[in-house]
């Protein structure tokens, strides 16, 4: 009798324990008006200026709200996935407000991580001034989950001294860029024609887009990969052409990321690079600080600009936050026009309000090519959780590396990439 009872208990225990663990989100959410507001922001390489601006916002917020304190924590960007996932899986450890990359949004929304701010934005007068395409990067299925805090685009940095010496003009088309880079390296073998890398996804994408292709397409609710279309293949092939010994040798360049490519340019090892407006500080700190200029990355025909990737970070409210209104008010403050202007002054990041953009463009000629690029039209990656997976598995960089090292030809590599992407889309 006892044995049977024990056996039964064991079976019940096994059965109930026989499912993967899940977070209990039943007690989530609330709207307390006092207490501590937890905020997570990203830690920049030189974080001082950012902290200065944020401290001002905190002081202003605390002064305006009784019995409220704001606790800001700065996270290293590299380790953010486990922090955010941990916060989604354990709502007790979650903050109220967070800064996050717009490419991470789809995955976070799939975990119900962030609150739907569509209604709040409709009631915010300033929201109407947000650049529409930038605001789109904060939307999933038409609902908005964050306020774009800053945006970043990339353009072509080049060495004015090298160009003058060799009598060259900044390239007007992508094809011209390739020949110019080749000519530079032929004349100066110790320079890369252009510093780009196999892992520099956001330099690859403009090539694909400029050639008329895209990496994926949405049909209703389903996504399918289009990296194997003729246009996309042409774009990828054109980019991989840069990773050749006569421009940027694969042995050095196949593994380079965006920041490494810019670092190579800043260190004087390359005559050109594709860099962001946010890379300005790094380039100015390098050996080339007085000898460079920026133009928009050209398209395939003269006069065209290659569509740039609309990078940027958003400020959002955690779905599990117990102080929703307070959190939203803080987002409005820190993400509003005044503080975006201050962040630009401190960190050089581009604001997301069209009027603020125009203001600073007139004051700072450095930003002109970037704003030109933004306003020529930016594009984004597939806004679906499967993108997190595709990005993490480096599907596209792998394809580029295969082609650059000669291990596979363009068709094989892109077909393989398309297959992997479709598998990821199907699984999500």
């Amino acid at each position, binding site marked *: 009798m006892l044995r049977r009872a024990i056996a039964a208990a064991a079976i019940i225990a096994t059965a109930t324990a026989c499912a993967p663990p899940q977070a209990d989100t039943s007690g989530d959410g609330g709207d307390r008006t006092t207490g501590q507001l937890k905020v997570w922001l990203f830690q920049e390489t030189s974080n001082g200026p950012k902290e200065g601006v944020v401290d001002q916002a905190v002081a202003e917020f605390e002064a305006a709200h009784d019995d409220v304190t704001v606790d800001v924590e700065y996270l290293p960007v590299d380790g953010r996935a486990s922090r955010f996932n941990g916060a989604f*899986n354990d709502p007790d450890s979650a903050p109220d407000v967070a800064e996050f990359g717009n490419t991470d949004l789809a995955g976070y929304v799939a975990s119900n991580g962030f609150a739907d701010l569509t209604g709040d934005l409709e009631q915010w007068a300033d929201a109407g001034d947000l650049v529409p395409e930038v605001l789109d990067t904060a939307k999933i299925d038409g609902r908005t989950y964050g306020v774009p805090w800053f945006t970043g685009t990339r353009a072509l940095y080049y060495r004015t001294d090298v160009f003058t010496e060799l009598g060259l003009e900044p390239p007007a088309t992508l094809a011209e860029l390739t020949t110019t880079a080749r000519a530079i390296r032929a004349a100066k073998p110790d320079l890369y024609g252009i510093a780009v890398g196999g892992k520099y996804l956001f330099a690859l994408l403009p090539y694909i887009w400029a050639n008329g292709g895209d990496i994926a397409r949405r049909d209703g609710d389903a996504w399918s990969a289009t990296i194997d279309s003729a246009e996309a293949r042409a774009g990828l092939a054109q980019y991989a052409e840069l990773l050749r010994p006569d421009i940027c040798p694969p042995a*050095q360049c196949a593994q380079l990321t965006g920041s490494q490519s810019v670092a190579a340019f800043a260190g004087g090892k390359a005559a050109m690079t594709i860099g962001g407006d946010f890379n300005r500080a790094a380039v100015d700190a390098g050996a080339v600080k007085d000898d460079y200029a920026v133009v928009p990355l050209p398209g395939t025909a003269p006069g065209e600009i290659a569509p740039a990737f609309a990078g940027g970070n958003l400020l959002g409210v955690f779905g599990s936050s117990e102080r929703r209104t307070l959190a939203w008010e803080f987002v409005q403050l820190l993400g509003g026009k005044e503080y975006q202007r201050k962040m630009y002054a401190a960190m050089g990041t581009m604001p997301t309000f069209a009027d603020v953009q125009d203001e600073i463009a007139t004051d700072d000629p450095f930003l002109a090519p970037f704003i030109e690029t933004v306003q020529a039209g930016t594009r984004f990656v597939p806004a679906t959780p499967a993108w997190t997976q595709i990005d993490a598995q480096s599907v596209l960089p792998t394809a580029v590396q295969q082609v650059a*090292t000669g291990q596979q030809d363009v068709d094989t590599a892109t077909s393989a990439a398309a297959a992997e992407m479709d598998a990821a889309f199907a699984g999500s």
Partner: protein
Amino acid sequence: MLPQITPAAPGDRTRPARQGPQRGQARAAVLYLLPTAVILLALLAYPIYQLVVISFYDYGQPQAAGAAPLVFLGFDNYVTLLGDPQFWDVLGATVVFAAVCVVGSLLVGTALAVLATRASPLPRMLLFLAALGAWATPAMAGSYVWLFLFDQDFGIVNEVLGLEGHSWTFERFSAFGLVAAEVVWCSFPFVMVTMYAGIKAIAPEVLEAAALDGATATRTATAVILPILRPLLMIATIQSIIWDFKVFTQIYVMTNGGGVAGQNLVLNVFAYQKAFAGEQYGLGAAIGVVMTVLLLSITGLYVRTQRRAG
């Protein structure tokens, strides 16, 4: 990792105990084992059980956060895994890489142990201290140091060898070789120390007898010392296999997450990419289970061949 030998553990061959103490023994055994049992059951056995369960589900970050329902997949994760050509490629690479590391550590460790027995105390102490230093270095620190030593622009190795800008991590075999060298560097010390202790413990009479019989140094080594040390070697090998098969940090750091186009992936890093970077915890769990089963088979096979060899 220090393997331990017990050529003849006296405790295993106790005389039959009297009846009274035997019952007391069982009770005392339970008491002594209780803390271990509680900790291991709760923190190792249960999570391993959950790992197996997870591998049967479509379990990703949304499911973990409670935002999406669980979908039971049965063996689908395993089918996907075993049908993925990349998995087999990575598996092959892992087996070869681990084999090289194991053989390397054993050879270097044993050779240096023999060398140490022949040297005077001071040089021997220097060697041991250097080896302990290598062993003490955390895997992450060691990986970065070796990466810097072999850096294509600023590394001293390239300067000494006169190779300008040569990248050691670009080619598949070169990258694997570099990581294997680092792994052997930090693994050989325990093989060395253990084998040294083993050799030292051989009764001098045995060696004298061999010398009296006219055996040369080599013959003494192979016919006398090696058989005595065989159990020691076996345990050292098993532990090395277990550890080198699961190498993660060194590969991850030194090949930047798996090398160009993932050519330097080993199973543990592959699982990490799929499970964590890709947030497919179900598939990652399947890989973990497969890895454990593989290790078990390899170790079991090794033990059986050793037993058969006498």
